[in-house]
C-alpha cells in the first residue's frame, strides 16, 4: 500500500498571524536576537499549527506538541510530520501513517569544504571529490539535505555522527549504508526546489511505495 506524504510550502518573511502560538513558542520567539529570526519562527510555527489543526479538525491554538530529546516536535496520536525552514521558506511533510520521516531544505550559502571532509562518510567524500566549483556546491547541498532529512527523521540532531551512514550523490536519492543496518527500510526523495535551494525527504517506508503530494505552495521555490 502506497505511503502518501503531503508537502506544504509557505513563505516566512511576511507578517503573519501569530495569535495561535503557545506561551512557550511566543517566549521562544522573543528570545531571538535578530528580529527576522523571530518573524520566521513565528510564521513557521503559525503555519505548522494551521496545517496540522486542519488535519485534526481542531483549532490551531489547541495543539499540544510533545518534544523528543533533541527538541523534535511531535503530536501524540499523529499525524507524523517534520518541519524545515531555510532562507525565505518553510517546508512541512505530513503523513497519516505511523512512521518516521524527516525533511530538510537549505538555501545555498558559502560553506567550508572542510565540513564535507571532516563530517561526511568516506564514500560521500569520494563522490564529492569528483566535483568542483558550482557543481561541488550543488553536490554538497544535495548530500547535506539527504543526510539531514535522515537525521531529522531519527530525531537525533547533530548527536548522530554524520559519517555513520552514506547517502548517494546524483539523480537517485537513497541511503546506501547505515552503520547498524536497515538502509533498505528507508526511501528518499529530492524536492525540485530549483536553483539556490536544495531539499530532500527521508521516509521509513519499509518497502512500501512512496507518493509525494504537493498540497500548498509551488516548486521550484522562488529565491
Amino acid at each position, binding site marked *: 500500500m502506497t505511503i502518501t506524504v503531503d508537502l506544504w510550502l509557505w513563505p516566512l518573511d511576511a507578517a503573519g498571524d501569530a495569535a495561535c502560538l503557545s506561551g512557550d513558542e511566543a517566549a*521562544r520567539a522573543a*528570545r*531571538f*536576537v*535578530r528580529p527576522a*529570526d523571530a518573524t*520566521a*519562527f513565528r510564521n513557521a510555527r503559525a503555519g505548522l499549527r494551521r496545517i496540522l489543526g486542519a488535519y485534526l479538525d481542531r483549532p490551531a491554538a489547541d495543539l499540544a506538541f510533545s518534544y523528543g530529546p533533541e527538541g523534535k516536535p511531535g503530536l501524540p496520536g499523529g499525524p507524523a510530520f517534520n518541519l524545515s525552514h*531555510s532562507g525565505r521558506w518553510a517546508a512541512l511533510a505530513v503523513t497519516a501513517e505511523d512512521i518516521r520521516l524527516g525533511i530538510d531544505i*537549505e538555501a545555498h*550559502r558559502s*560553506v*567550508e569544504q*572542510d*565540513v564535507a571532509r*571532516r*563530517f561526511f562518510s568516506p564514500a560521500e567524500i569520494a563522490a564529492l571529490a569528483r566535483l568542483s566549483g558550482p557543481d561541488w556546491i550543488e553536490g554538497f547541498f544535495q548530500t*547535506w539535505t539527504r543526510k*539531514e532529512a535522515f537525521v531529522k527523521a531519527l530525531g537525533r*540532531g*547533530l*548527536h548522530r*555522527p554524520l559519517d555513520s551512514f552514506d547517502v548517494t550523490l546524483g539523480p537517485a536519492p537513497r541511503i546506501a549504508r547505515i552503520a547498524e543496518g536497515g538502509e533498505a527500510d528507508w526511501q528518499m526523495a529530492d524536492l525540485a526546489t530549483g536553483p539556490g535551494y536544495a531539499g530532500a525527504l527521508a521516509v521509513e517506508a519499509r518497502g512500501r511505495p512512496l507518493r509525494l503530494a504537493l498540497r500548498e505552495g509551488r516548486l521550484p521555490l522562488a529565491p
Partner: protein
Amino acid sequence: MTHDEIRRAFLEELTHVAPDLDAATIGGGDHLQDDLELDSMDILNLVIALNARFGVAIPEADYRRIATPDLAVAYLAEKTAKPAGTGG
C-alpha cells in the same frame, strides 16, 4: 590567550559563520541555536573555524560545551591552556 582574547576571536569566527549577526548585540549567555538561530550547518562551519583558529578539534560530544559564548570561551580556554610545568 586571555579569556578576553578568546572571546574576541570566538565572536569573530561566529560572525564570520553568521555574517548578519552583530557581535555587539550578542550576549555571553545567548544560545547559538535557540537565540542566534544557527542551524546544524552553521554549527559545523563554526566547529571547523574554531579548529583552524585555536587548534582545538571539538568532538560531537562536546558541542553542548560551546552552546553559548560564555561556555565556548571557558571550553576553549581549558583546551588551549598550557599544561602545568611547561613554563612560558
